[in-house]
């Protein structure tokens, strides 16, 4: 085991790396190693060609044994990449890994001072001196291992939440699934069909709802909200409160998944919304289709990016191009089935299935089409014959540019064009206008290709407004101490590398709660979040880094300032009213340490004394 050497005489070893010529070419490395030998406490110093290579690591281990080193300084590259390697090495030699200090003389010295060897060497000497000053004040640390409650909380019973809950339940973990509405299903319950299928949306998710309801590991709380969350990874205390009752249910869980979804943006008078009849949003249109309450119309217009991409919100809502294309095709192919009167008259038209064509077929068709000019498709003509030319519904999609990303969707876009859906572009500085001319709804727009103002009569205007964050996202953000971004959506830990993690350990996010996404993407994220949430549950414990706050209870006056400033809720008051750090929740940022009015809080491995010794050693020769 590791020996506690804190009371022994200090014996520092310094290893200065050439890193081939990366450092050696611009810094006089041997002279830096020689200089290190003169520093008080240093009993051994050497330079290596590559300290991180097998022989360099062996040299460290040998020196620790041979010279009875109890502190190690490596001066080479950046701790951000190589610290774990050297820490493991000193540990192998029986030294606690917290008795090691890294000095960066490559990224912060040789590579940025390539034309002034003398000054760079002087700086490297200073940096080594600072590292030695620091290492002498370090003490060994144990990393705490904290047991984990093997269950999870999922907030939100939409597709993402249900998928995540079911996934965790299948792994054998009890899940509490909280939904604020009276039914499971979320946003999808509003939708008619899900592109790229023509199947009824509710029907599509019904099996999932049934699986969730019937799974013995899942407890569903409908019409309920999470009212309180305390604790940290592995050990959250959560309270669930039904909307219509006061009594709360309490549970202990190890992980939390946020899958609270999004809502559709609407704004009074946006393109005549709520001013003129027959101006609706995409989702309202879907509900009309679903309930078969569409009015009889001849001209339909979609307006894309209504309220998004700089108009009211900054971002692209991502899914609306594909949804509009889906609905445009639905209208052209299947209008009679969506009509309110259809059911009453009993007149139903045979459904025309819309399926994405394989690329080869499309290419083949394009070839055929170009060979006979811009002629219409046989299929299309046949359809028109069936319906009668007068009954064709004209669909126009006003757009800034169509983003039908993905493999199937581009084909879908082509399909819409083949079906003679008109795509009319507009620029953000010249948006189309929805006006009322007498009792006739009109769209006034600027035709870019012809460079003329035009007007067209419309019977129904469908606005593709963006998905926006849930109005109660802020509440959940406060409850869980996880951030929301500028647009109100939940903000993941890293935009590229950690898409479903929050910066707070043990809390995860998926689905439209973190931004617009379609159902496929929501499910992908939900499965990812479930897997991330299961990691600590499966391990049964979490290991915390030994960089954390420590309260000296002799000095603490219980003022509570640290509790206010801690971003992780990692400080609580004990029975005596004094501050106490919850080791597993503390991340070691040091905000409480710098805030404590009594100067009672120190940061393990980053104490005031250690930092000041390092900083002041930059200014003068160490004592």
């Amino acid at each position: 085991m590791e020996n506690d050497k804190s009371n022994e005489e200090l014996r520092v070893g310094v290893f200065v790396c050439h890193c081939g010529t990366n450092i050696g070419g611009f810094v006089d490395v041997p002279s830096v190693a020689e200089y290190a030998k003169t520093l008080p406490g240093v009993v051994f110093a050497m330079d290596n060609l590559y300290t991180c290579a097998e022989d360099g690591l062996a040299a460290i281990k040998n020196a620790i044994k041979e010279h009875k080193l109890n502190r190690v300084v490596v001066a080479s590259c950046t701790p951000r990449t190589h610290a774990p390697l050297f820490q493991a090495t000193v540990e192998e030699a029986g030294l606690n890994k917290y008795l090691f200090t890294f000095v960066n003389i490559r990224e912060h010295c040789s590579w940025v001072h390539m034309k002034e060897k003398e000054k760079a060497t002087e700086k490297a000497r200073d940096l080594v001196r600072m590292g030695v000053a620091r290492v002498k004040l370090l003490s060994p640390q144990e990393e705490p291992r904290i047991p984990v409650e093997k269950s999870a909380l999922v907030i939100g019973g939409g597709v993402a939440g249900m998928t995540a809950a079911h996934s965790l339940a299948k792994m054998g973990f009890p899940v509490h699934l909280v939904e604020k509405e009276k039914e499971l299903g979320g946003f999808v319950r509003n939708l008619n069909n899900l592109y790229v299928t023509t199947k009824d949306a509710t029907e599509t998710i019904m099996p999932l709802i049934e699986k969730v309801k019937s799974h013995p590991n899942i407890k569903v709380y409908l019409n309920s909200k999470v009212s309180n969350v305390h604790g940290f990874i592995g050990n959250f205390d959560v309270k669930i409160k039904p909307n219509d009752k006061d009594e709360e249910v309490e549970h202990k869980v190890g992980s939390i998944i946020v899958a609270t979804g999004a809502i559709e943006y609407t704004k009074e008078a946006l393109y005549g919304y709520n001013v003129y009849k027959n101006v609706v949003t995409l989702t309202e249109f879907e509900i009309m289709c679903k309930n078969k309450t569409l009015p009889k119309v001849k001209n339909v217009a979609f307006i894309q990016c209504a309220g998004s991409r700089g108009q009211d919100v900054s971002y692209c809502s991502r899914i609306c191009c594909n949804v509009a294309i889906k609905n445009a095709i639905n209208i052209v192919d299947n209008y009679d089935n969506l009509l309110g009167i259809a059911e009453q008259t009993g007149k139903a038209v045979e459904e025309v299935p819309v399926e994405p064509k394989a690329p080869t077929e499309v290419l083949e068709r394009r070839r055929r089409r170009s060979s006979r000019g811009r002629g219409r498709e046989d299929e299309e003509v046949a359809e028109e014959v069936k319906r009668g030319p007068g009954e064709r519904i004209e669909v126009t999609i006003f757009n800034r540019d169509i983003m039908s990303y993905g493999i199937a969707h581009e084909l879908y876009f082509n399909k819409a064009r083949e079906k003679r859906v008109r795509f009319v572009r507009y620029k953000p500085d010249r948006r189309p206008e929805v006006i009322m001319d007498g009792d006739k709804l009109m769209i006034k727009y600027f035709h870019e290709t012809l460079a003329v103002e035009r007007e067209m009569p419309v019977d129904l205007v469908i606005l593709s407004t963006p998905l926006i964050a849930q109005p109660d996202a802020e509440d959940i953000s406060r409850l869980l101490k996880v951030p929301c971004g500028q647009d109100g959506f939940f903000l993941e830990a890293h935009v590229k590398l950690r898409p479903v993690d929050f910066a707070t350990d043990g809390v995860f996010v998926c689905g439209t709660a973190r931004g617009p996404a379609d159902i496929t993407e929501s499910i992908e994220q939900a499965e990812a979040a479930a897997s991330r949430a299961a990691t600590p549950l499966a391990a049964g414990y979490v290991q915390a880094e030994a960089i954390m706050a420590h309260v000296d209870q002799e000095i603490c006056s219980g003022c509570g300032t640290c509790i206010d400033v801690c971003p992780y809720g990692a400080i609580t008051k004990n029975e005596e009213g004094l501050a106490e750090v919850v080791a597993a929740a503390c991340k070691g940022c040091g905000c409480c340490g710098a805030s404590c009015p009594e100067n009672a809080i120190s940061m393990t491995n980053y104490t005031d004394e250690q930092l000041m010794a390092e900083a002041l050693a930059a200014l003068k020769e160490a004592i």
Partner: protein
Amino acid sequence: MAEDFEPKIVGFLCNWCSYAGADLCGVSRYQYPTNIRVVRVMCSTRISPHMVLRILREGADGVILGGCHIGDCHYISGNYYTERRFEMMEKMIELAGLEPERIRLEWVSASEGERFSKVVSDFVSQIKKLGPSPVRNKPEVAKKLEGAENASKSFRMKALVSKEYNLLTKENVYEEMLDPERLRNLIEQAANDEYERSLILTLTQDKSLSVKDLSKIIDVPTDRVLEHIVALRQKNLIAMEHPDGFTPTYHAIIIGGE
């Protein structure tokens, strides 16, 4: 200014953004002057004002703090507190008679390698323009910095500066928002008071001084010095003497001292 003046600059960089930005700067080989010596901290919020004041008192020509951009803090909200603390540092440095331009706060992201080199180059030339720290040949500036350091370590200043961000952004227990102007004035007043009182204690540690002496050194009116002395005597931090039997002089009571 001497052309060969090479300033000593200490930098505190946060592990997640600005230190990583400095790493990227190295990887990309953007060159900058050799004057900066970097101390890595987990978050810029770790740095207390008294640490920076101490480093300046010990002769650093400049101190630079680096953090993540606002909104990007690895620890969610750390840099908001850094911002508040930095304002306090500037205030204290100014009170102590040093140029506030000797300290700088910069947000540098992990992807802003080139920007890091520009920030350092710019700060070095700024410090070169200011010249060597006056601490080196003016002991009274060091004394004043010591007063500022102690003031920023006081319960009142630490509590106010730490609570400032939350007071400005969150409702209090009565669901009211504080008037930012009022809070600012309150903190400003507290900073002046604490600085002057700490300086009185610092100055009277080695020798007894009269109200007039103190008024001259600190450069505040005598009635204000007297007010502070009354406050300090109430807290039993300062004692009165009559060495010449006429003019009272004061010396600091060193708690737990000899």
